[in-house]
């Protein structure tokens, strides 16, 4: 077994075998997608009628839709009836604080390197953890609530802050937006909710960890972030899943609202199980992420490091509605073995003097395919807007593919759009230079790739940046030679 397999195993399956699926009592819905299941999910979550109606309406529409076929992905047929749409570790009672969280669970998270307690103690990051479908516990709640910041599970938000949820849910990503978002709208189970009140600068990173645990389940989480006028928040999202032979579906939705002068930084390190060396198993990751810069001078910045999943379909986007608003997208997407990624962004310029920046670094190895797909759309009234896009692709080996699909529409004459793209192969000269200094090939590639992705990695908060660098090396180990 190669080193990366070993480390991957350490990360995922080993703890899983000895850990929680034995100890946890899991509450799982029968397989299948129909109105009864949606009603079941809604009733499990003790949801109000308006939300159930919203779900059912989404489902009605979903039945009329078909899977998108425009991506540069080869997606095997998914049997939506063969998936369980709800799975939860059985809770004995409502959790009031982290101290009440099942110690087994905390231990498992610690093994995964996602220590809630440790993070709580050392870095002051507030964490919400979602396993399968249910949010397990949110740390630091008291401290945040002193500032009026709400950071809790989505289901809790529906109960405690229904008006806030009702006002923003589905406003950036309507239920009918696309096939997977529509599915999510019908069956989403949990996720995180975050509200930063006017003028408040969130003093710590807010973080959500998602994990798919049970087999044959899909995970459909929904995250909603609302940054009120003049507020600031940095939000982190991490994802892991155990190794499984069968493919599992993940279709999440993330919506962000940034009001006047508000700033939201959203960072993701996605490490869903990518499948084995022969392309067996792995997560299908179909995610819709979109933010709206609603007020003037607002800013939304997406940073993503995508190393996992068998298939990634994901375009974190910004609608720049407020004048002078700013949208940013920084992405590193790594594919190895038989992974496929089709990822990028949309920047929709509506307000005047709006600016957007796209930095995309694709790295392909093995037999994988990696596509950047981007759309920059400057509308007529978005006078004096600017976009800068840079899309670089790095190829390791000669069986992989890198593809770039930039779409640019500009409807006025005062705006400026720049697009730069490069494709390069990792240089033999560079590798030899490293080797000659005593660095072995694996480390040489890790060094070169991390250097290549540095512009994006440096956007990540410190703890995440270290994790991301490790992941990049891990994903590419054994990919050359």
């Amino acid at each position, binding site marked *: 077994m190669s080193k990366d397999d070993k480390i991957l195993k350490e990360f995922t399956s080993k703890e899983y075998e000895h850990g929680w699926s034995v100890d946890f009592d899991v509450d799982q819905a029968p397989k299948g997608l129909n109105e009864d299941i949606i009603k079941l999910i809604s009733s499990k979550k003790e949801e109000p009628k308006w939300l159930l109606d919203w779900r059912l309406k989404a489902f009605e529409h979903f039945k009329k839709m078909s899977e998108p076929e425009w991506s540069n992905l080869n997606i095997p047929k998914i049997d939506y009836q063969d998936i369980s749409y709800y799975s939860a570790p059985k809770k004995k009672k409502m959790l009031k604080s982290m101290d009440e969280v099942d110690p087994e669970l905390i231990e498992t998270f610690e093994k995964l390197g996602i220590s809630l307690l440790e993070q709580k103690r050392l870095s002051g990051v507030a964490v919400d953890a979602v396993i399968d479908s249910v949010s397990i516990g949110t740390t630091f709640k008291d401290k945040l609530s002193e500032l009026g910041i709400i950071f809790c599970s989505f289901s809790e938000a529906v109960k405690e802050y229904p008006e806030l949820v009702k006002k923003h849910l589905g406003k950036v990503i309507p239920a009918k937006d696309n096939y997977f978002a529509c599915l999510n709208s019908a069956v989403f189970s949990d996720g995180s909710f975050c509200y930063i009140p006017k003028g408040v600068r969130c003093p710590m990173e807010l973080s959500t960890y998602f994990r798919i645990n049970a087999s044959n389940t899909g995970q459909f989480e929904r995250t909603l972030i609302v940054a009120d006028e003049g507020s600031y928040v940095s939000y982190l999202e991490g994802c892991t899943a155990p190794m499984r032979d069968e493919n599992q579906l993940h279709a999440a939705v993330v919506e962000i609202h940034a009001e006047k002068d508000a700033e939201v930084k959203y960072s993701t390190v996605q490490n869903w199980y990518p499948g084995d060396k022969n392309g067996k198993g792995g997560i299908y990751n179909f995610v819709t992420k979109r933010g709206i810069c609603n007020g003037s001078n607002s800013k939304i910045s997406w940073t993503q490091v995508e190393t996992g999943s068998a298939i990634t379909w994901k375009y974190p986007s910004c609608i720049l509605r407020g004048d002078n608003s700013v949208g940013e997208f920084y992405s590193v997407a790594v594919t190895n073995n038989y992974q496929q990624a089709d990822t990028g962004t949309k920047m929709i310029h509506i307000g005047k003097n709006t600016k957007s920046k796209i930095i995309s670094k694709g790295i392909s190895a093995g037999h994988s395919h990696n596509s950047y797909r981007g759309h920059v759309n400057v509308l007529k009234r978005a006078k004096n807007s600017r976009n800068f896009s840079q899309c670089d692709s790095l190829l390791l080996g000669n069986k992989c593919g890198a593809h770039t699909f930039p779409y640019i529409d500009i409807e006025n004459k005062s705006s400026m759009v720049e697009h730069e793209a490069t494709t390069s192969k990792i240089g033999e000269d560079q590798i030899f*230079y490293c080797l*000659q*200094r*005593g660095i072995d090939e694996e480390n040489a590639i890790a*060094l070169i790739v991390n*250097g*290549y*992705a540095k512009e994006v990695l440096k956007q990540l908060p410190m703890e995440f940046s270290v994790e991301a660098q490790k992941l990049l090396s891990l994903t590419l180990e054994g990919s050359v030679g």
Partner: protein
Amino acid sequence: MLEIKNLHASIDDTKILKGLNLSVSAGEVHAIMGPNGSGKSTLASVIAGREDYDVTDGEINFGGSELSDLGPDERAREGIFLAFQYPVEIPGVSTTNFMKTAVNQVREANGEKPLDAVQFLKLMKEKMKLVNIKQELLSRSINEGFSGGEKKRNEIFQMAMLEPKLAILDETDSGLDIDALKIVSNGVNALKSNENATVVVTHYQRLLDYIVPDFVHVLMDGKIVKSGDKNLALELEEKGYDWIKVKN
């Protein structure tokens, strides 16, 4: 230390080295001189283990082990260092980070503990003085946007960090003005000891005014055709390579 016997090497079926012999002992400085295309840089690359070259015959023995069984990284960890004629750029990777990875991997191979950040910085500070290199340069992406002189100083800095047994300087003088040449030479001289050896590959005698060789070898058409002491270099400078060609 280094024993090369009847070395034949080619690239893409073009024969470049055609039966080269060379013996280098600890404490010695050897200069390899020769006209363009004589195989000087090939020799440096072959010793370092560059895979573009095929060794078709002969042997290279270093410190008792046969090098042909070792990859370039293993050779480096055995103590062979090549100062590149054209140092390579690696965007986003600082010299500091590059060296930290290298030094610790070499230490690990020798059964030593890796240096922590404090120890590493201390070592770096010490070695920086040797070649008069600034911290700011070491924090930048390695060799990216460096001047010719900065690149070569950076090579010697890396050599100082790694403390090799055998250092091969491939045309280290090319592209250097006289001040940079002095700095680089001083660095190389300061690193000399009874335990290590230096092979200087060069075109011109100029460098040898500063790094004084014990032996000078003339390489022509893939073979060493003449060896002598430092006076041979002076003679070559005066009479040109044709002098040797005619004699042959």
